[in-house]
């Protein structure tokens, strides 16, 4: 004889990721490492900005370079003789807390003070996955168009710092960078928004100060 049974599961996959993320953060806290999740579109300048920050921060920096094929970005970071873990996501469009947990196992946390986690270039999928970092920095560039923020609101809603990069070419691509700033402020009134250019050096010290300020505010 057979019977039909209702089996309650109530397993939220987002919550499961969140719990892993919290565990990642506890591991980072124990090692006194401040961590920044760097999110943004493909080609917005995430890798170049992290390279700049590696050179400018006095603290010992490590990088987890996440990408569909991570060896390109990881190779760029390795030239600075810092700990780098390349994290291949393969077919996946985002990092999640589980992948980062494994990458952290290969990162000598006791030897670093600051960990950048470069997410996969994507303004959509990473939104759903907290990694356990202390800070979320979203990097977009004017070349993505000044409606980028309106089209991808959620990633800006929870950001702790937003960088609008490549402002030196705003006129050339006919984009109003100020509109992008206002759109972010509309979604996230208290967030710091910095217009920057790695080419002409605009806003870069502000980015460093914003990361330091955020770290100090939570420590």
């Amino acid at each position, binding site marked *: 004889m057979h*019977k039909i049974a209702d089996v309650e599961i*109530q397993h939220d*996959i987002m919550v499961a990721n969140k719990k892993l993320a919290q565990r990642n953060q506890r591991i980072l806290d124990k090692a006194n490492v401040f961590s920044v999740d760097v999110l943004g579109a493909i080609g917005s300048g995430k890798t170049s900005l992290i390279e700049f920050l590696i050179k400018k921060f006095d603290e010992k920096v490590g990088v987890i370079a996440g990408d569909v094929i991570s060896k390109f970005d990881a190779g760029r970071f390795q030239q600075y003789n810092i700990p780098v873990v390349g994290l291949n996501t393969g*077919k996946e469009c985002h990092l999640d807390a589980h992948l980062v947990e494994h990458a952290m196992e290969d990162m000598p946390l006791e030897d670093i003070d600051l960990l950048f986690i470069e997410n996969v270039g994507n303004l959509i999928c990473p939104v*759903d996955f907290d990694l356990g970092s202390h800070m979320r920095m979203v990097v977009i560039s004017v070349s993505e168009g000044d409606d980028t923020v309106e089209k991808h609101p959620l990633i800006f809603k929870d950001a702790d710092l937003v960088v609008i990069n490549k402002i030196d070419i705003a006129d050339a691509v006919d984009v109003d960078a100020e509109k992008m700033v206002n759109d972010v402020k509309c979604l996230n009134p208290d967030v710091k928004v910095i217009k920057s250019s790695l080419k002409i050096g605009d806003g870069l010290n502000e980015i460093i100060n914003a990361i330091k300020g955020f770290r100090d505010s939570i420590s």
Partner: protein
Amino acid sequence: MHELSMANAIVKTVLDVAEKNQAEEILDVTIEIGKLTMLNPEQLRFLLDVLKEDTLLEGAEIIIEEIPVEIKCRACGYTGSTTLDDSDHYLMIVKCPDCDERNLEILSGQECNVKNIRVEKPD
């Protein structure tokens, strides 16, 4: 395309529970998806249909329920549903329907919950 990783996680969760309950067949699965997640229910359903082949889930009906967005206004304290417009994702999280304040906390709408299954099992 993170529907695929989510679909894999859902299938694994369901098959684990079914096995623990000695299920011989899974009749249906109910999944709750928050309206603010970056998951497209139709893509998710398609992938679940592919992944369930040759498993206990093969004949199961996939039921997807939507969890609406609920916000709390940090200014006036309003708690509840927000402005909804399917053509504009932006409106839901942009302002309080009571006082127009923009500083909002999202209370619900970000879930991907495997709620329950109905199974056939021996007495």
